[in-house]
């Protein structure tokens, strides 16, 4: 072992030894800063009488909130008028919901990014003042801007928007927002309000919707999209944890220690469990999470659905004893009869002919029919018991009230038949997972000694065009095995966003119309959406860096959409890929420069964010930006929108919290939150344990109030109808197909059976964009402390695919849509056949092109979801 070489890497990196000193350092007025005799600037050697330890400091509570989900509460320390330090603070004071460990500070959290806020806030890339693109400069020119006053900025924007709206109507102005901050006065919040107030168009980003669709089909749509799971502090209660398509150990670092506790015998002993839990990781890439797993499987990219279908087959056809009959028949639609003709649920009224009979029809244990009747909670239940139920109820004829007859089967039987084709051999062929592996995975998921099972899915599988089938299948597998609704058993994500927030009613305007990003270019080309006129001329980008984060960045967005817009505004904190394409850039305050509240996180607390310092330069909060704009707009005519913004930041926050309650039912007011800093809002039935999703067996978003693995809610079957109306009709076949989880090959990445031979020959490698610890999407891209470690962009490729490419070589990664010039890293992290460029680097950081040029806007019509990993590329050495 080359220990010596390891140790050669000292405190100072070699890069620094080579680096020459780049000139003087400007030391601004700061008490105690001095120059030594040689005139060299001393960084902070202070006069003895005034050492740093006695400089006055003040500490505020801040909420770090970049859509990494973790929403950490921080202590933000201010000296003079600058933030000089962030550290982790106590999150939550309540003991409930922690788990038996009840460890002090179980929810306290910070990470490398949260520790480098000072660099983000005071970065040279920060936008300090309103900027206007100079007349002689092209859009996209990073240096093409000059400073203007707020007045000029607002006059220009409101003037342009007024012009556009007067000529083309309010829909001609569009807003595109991202997930830059989980706040109300900073980030996306105020712009959604502004879009509604103006009755403008909104461009929906179509991100992460497939996982949501699949899980919500089964568990119901009554919650925010990313909330189908137990509280994460419940993880130590699981006997087996499946991490599927997620790098929890790198991208949700604050969730990892809950999982680590599950794997720790001593911690488990404290909660009365014997031995450690078992961790399983499924991911084509050998991630940090995969490295922690007891069992690691590397399937063919985009094939995960097949593995679940084959596991379902193993249980339903081979290991029937692993079925949780009780859960299936009390809490799911398994016994309900489905009509062969309509593929819909057979209703009591179909048989009795009386509309007032609103029960469902199911098959009882002795093979006769029974109607459901609602229990006290309104859930349709049968009289009698269904324990040890194994009536399959396949293809039975029933007489209808109208005199006809129809063939019906139970939802259980339909599923069983549906998965029958997924034999071991077929699974091997599609997913490259063999019989032995499949049997072991099934055993780990379903055998009594391995229960309860928690599944922690990530968005890896979501980023293929078939991602909703995967999620639907996974939720179904959890239902069949009863791994739902119990301590240690859950399947989904825990991000109970926005639970506590009140919608502050608008005085004017109405709903803005949603145009999917994935269809936006068509709308620009045709001026039509859903057959109506949408002549979009003006765009406001805010609360996120959408040019960096939307698929097919170059051909679709930069070359296809941007040139067709007459006027573009961007509110930003730093100079991003998006900001540089704007005509006017507005400087948005950073998170600690404005008061805010955060109630979106993978923890169950509402969190205060105190204003710690004044914004840098001329920056103001996003809330104030929208206020200023509304004021300017009203001067142009009868818009009358300022009344929707006539609140101070704090008044607005107080309004947002109106009606919110904590887990005990006591009101959460802004005043109280300011006092207590963080308040647990999510109720847990057990009162002294973590929140358990579905504990009461009531899935109240579903018409049957049961888990609907056979999809019932037609709106939910197609997310298009749920979140947005594409104006596209689905055929009966399409609808029938989406009822049960099915295999569909990914649109582009696929190289298994049925692959596109021409495409795979031309572009031999599947392409994904790993999310790393250095950034959250594109945020922190410029932070120098992190860049010292993360380095410049690179592409990772397995040695088997690398040919004569060596680590450090400059390569061109390309496909029909674009390219990226990057260094190669030949690595065993990657599965042969797939490459990855870590996500979030800006175009300016590439030698040419960018990582997002290579992704696609092709999508599955049911999910309308960006399939970022569903792409193929070729790699060649580049001579530069």
């Amino acid at each position: 072992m080359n220990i010596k070489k390891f140790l050669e890497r000292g405190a100072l990196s070699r890069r620094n030894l080579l680096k020459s000193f780049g000139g003087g350092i400007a030391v601004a007025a700061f008490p105690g800063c001095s120059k030594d005799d040689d005139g060299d600037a001393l960084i902070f050697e202070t006069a003895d009488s005034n050492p740093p330890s006695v400089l006055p400091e003040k500490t505020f509570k801040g909420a770090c909130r970049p859509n990494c989900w973790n929403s950490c509460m921080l202590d933000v320390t201010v000296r003079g008028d600058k933030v000089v330090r962030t550290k982790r603070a106590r999150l939550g004071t309540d003991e409930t919901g922690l788990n038996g460990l009840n460890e002090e500070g179980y929810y306290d959290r910070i990470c490398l990014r949260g520790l480098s806020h000072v660099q983000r806030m005071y970065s040279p890339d920060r936008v300090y003042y309103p900027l206007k693109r100079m007349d002689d400069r092209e859009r996209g020119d990073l240096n093409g801007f000059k400073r203007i006053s707020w007045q000029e900025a607002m006059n220009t924007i409101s003037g342009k928007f007024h012009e556009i709206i007067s000529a083309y109507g309010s829909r001609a102005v569009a807003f595109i927002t991202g997930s830059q901050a989980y706040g109300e006065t900073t980030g996306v919040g105020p712009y959604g309000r502004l879009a509604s107030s103006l009755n403008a168009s909104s461009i929906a980003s179509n991100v992460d919707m497939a996982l949501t669709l699949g899980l919500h089909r089964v568990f119901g749509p009554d919650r925010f999209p990313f909330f189908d799971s137990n509280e994460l502090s419940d993880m130590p209660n699981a006997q087996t944890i499946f991490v599927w398509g997620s790098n929890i150990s790198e991208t949700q670092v604050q969730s990892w220690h809950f999982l680590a506790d599950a794997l720790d015998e001593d911690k488990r002993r404290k909660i009365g469990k014997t031995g450690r839990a078992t961790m399983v990781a499924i991911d084509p890439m050998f991630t940090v999470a995969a490295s922690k797993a007891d069992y690691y499987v590397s399937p063919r990219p985009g094939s995960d659905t097949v593995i679940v279908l084959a596991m379902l087959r193993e249980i339903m056809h081979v290991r029937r004893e692993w079925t949780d009959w009780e859960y299936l028949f009390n809490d799911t639609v398994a016994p309900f009869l489905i009509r062969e003709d309509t593929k819909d649920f057979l209703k009591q009224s179909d048989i009795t002919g009386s509309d007032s009979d609103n029960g469902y029809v199911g098959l009882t244990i002795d093979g006769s029919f029974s109607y459901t009747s609602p229990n006290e909670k309104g859930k349709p239940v049968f009289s009698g018991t269904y324990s040890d139920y194994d009536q399959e109820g396949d293809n039975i004829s029933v007489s209808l009230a109208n005199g006809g007859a129809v063939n019906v089967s139970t939802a259980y039987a339909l599923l069983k038949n549906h998965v029958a084709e997924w034999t071991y051999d077929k699974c091997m062929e599609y997913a490259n997972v063999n019989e032995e592996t499949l049997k072991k995975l099934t055993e780990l998921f379903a055998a009594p000694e391995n229960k309860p099972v928690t599944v922690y899915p990530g968005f890896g599988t979501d980023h293929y065009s078939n991602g909703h089938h995967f999620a639907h299948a996974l939720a179904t597998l959890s239902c069949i095995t009863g791994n739902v609704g119990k301590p240690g058993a859950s399947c989904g994500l825990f991000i109970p966003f926005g639970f506590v927030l009140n919608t502050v009613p608008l005085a004017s305007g109405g709903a803005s119309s949603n145009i999917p990003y994935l269809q936006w270019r068509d709308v620009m080309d045709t001026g039509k959406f859903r057959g109506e006129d949408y002549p979009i001329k003006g765009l406001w980008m805010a609360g996120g860096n959408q040019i960096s984060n939307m698929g097919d960045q170059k051909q679709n967005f930069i070359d296809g959409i941007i040139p067709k817009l007459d006027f573009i505004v961007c509110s930003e904190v730093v100079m991003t890929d998006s900001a540089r394409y704007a005509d006017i850039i507005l400087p948005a305050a950073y998170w600690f420069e404005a008061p805010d509240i955060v109630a979106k996180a993978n923890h169950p607390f509402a969190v205060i964010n105190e204003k710690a310092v004044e914004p840098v330069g001329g920056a103001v909060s996003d809330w104030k930006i929208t206020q200023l704009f509304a004021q300017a707009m009203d001067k142009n005519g009868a818009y009358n929108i300022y009344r929707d913004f006539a609140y101070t930041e704090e008044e607005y926050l107080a309004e947002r919290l109106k009606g919110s309650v904590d887990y005990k039912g006591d009101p959460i007011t802004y005043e109280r939150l300011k006092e207590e800093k963080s308040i647990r809002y999510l109720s847990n039935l057990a009162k002294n344990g973590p929140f358990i999703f579905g504990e009461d067996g009531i899935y109240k978003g579903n018409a049957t109030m049961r888990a609907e693995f056979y999809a019932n809610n037609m709106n939910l079957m197609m997310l298009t109808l749920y979140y947005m109306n594409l104006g596209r009709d689905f055929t009966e076949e399409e609808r029938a197909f989406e009822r049960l989880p099915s295999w569909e090959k990914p649109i582009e990445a696929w190289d298994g059976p049925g692959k596109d031979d021409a495409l795979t020959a031309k572009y031999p490698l599947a392409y994904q964009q790993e999310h790393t610890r250095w950034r959250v999407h594109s945020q922190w891209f410029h932070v120098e402390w992190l860049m010292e470690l993360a380095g410049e962009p690179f592409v990772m490729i397995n040695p088997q695919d690398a040919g004569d490419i060596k680590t450090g070589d400059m390569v061109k990664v390309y496909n029909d849509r674009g390219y990226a010039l990057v260094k190669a890293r030949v690595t065993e992290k990657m599965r042969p056949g797939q490459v990855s460029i870590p996500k979030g680097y800006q175009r300016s950081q590439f030698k040419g092109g960018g990582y997002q040029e290579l992704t696609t806007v092709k999508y599955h019509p049911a999910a309308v979801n960006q399939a970022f990993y569903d792409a193929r590329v070729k790699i060649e050495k580049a001579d530069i």
Partner: protein
Amino acid sequence: MPQLVMVIDQKRCIGCHSCSIACKLENNLPKDMFYTRVYTNRVAYAGENELGMDEPEGSHVISGGGFVNTPDRRSLMLKYYTKGCQQCAKPLCVDACPYEATYKREKDGVVIVDYDKCIGCGQCVTACPYNARVSVTGDEEYYKGAQDTPVGGQGIPPHKKNTVEKCTFCSHRLDAGLKPACIEACPARARFIGEEDNPSNEIYPMLNGAREKECLLPEKNTEPSVYFLK
């Protein structure tokens, strides 16, 4: 002399570098300087840069469709070592310093540099087998954002040119009754500190339990005070 030791649980450590950045913030370190860094599999990251980070040992075996890793057979392996000053019980740097500028604190065995005595001759830098020390020449580049108001913790000794610096287990924080910044920051709860021979300390059962432990370069007889629990 009581000896403070640090314990890093490799089963929990996820190589996130929060410890490195917490240290950088706490101590207001300039460009390219780290008192502590994260290394992958100890040797794999002996390369020059990020292109070797998180590089597993082994190979990504997929033929036959079996598990890549099971509890019994692992084709790929990833483990992290974080490395700063080892606060050796027998520090070679202390012996090497001609000016008695570097010494072990009586109360906790932490190795300290007295910037008033240190002239930056670099003898200790050469003597340290762990390459844990760094010379401060005055040419360091501090970040623009940090310049007009120094960042970091209270009570850090001001940087001084022509001295040598290193990790001090955050001695200024220890003196204030706080844990080192890297430990406070670790999201994985993988880092621990305590007196080596004190049974009432949380690290005592860790070091004296069933888990295998490892120190860096034991053959140098420096008796390092940083343990990795495997």
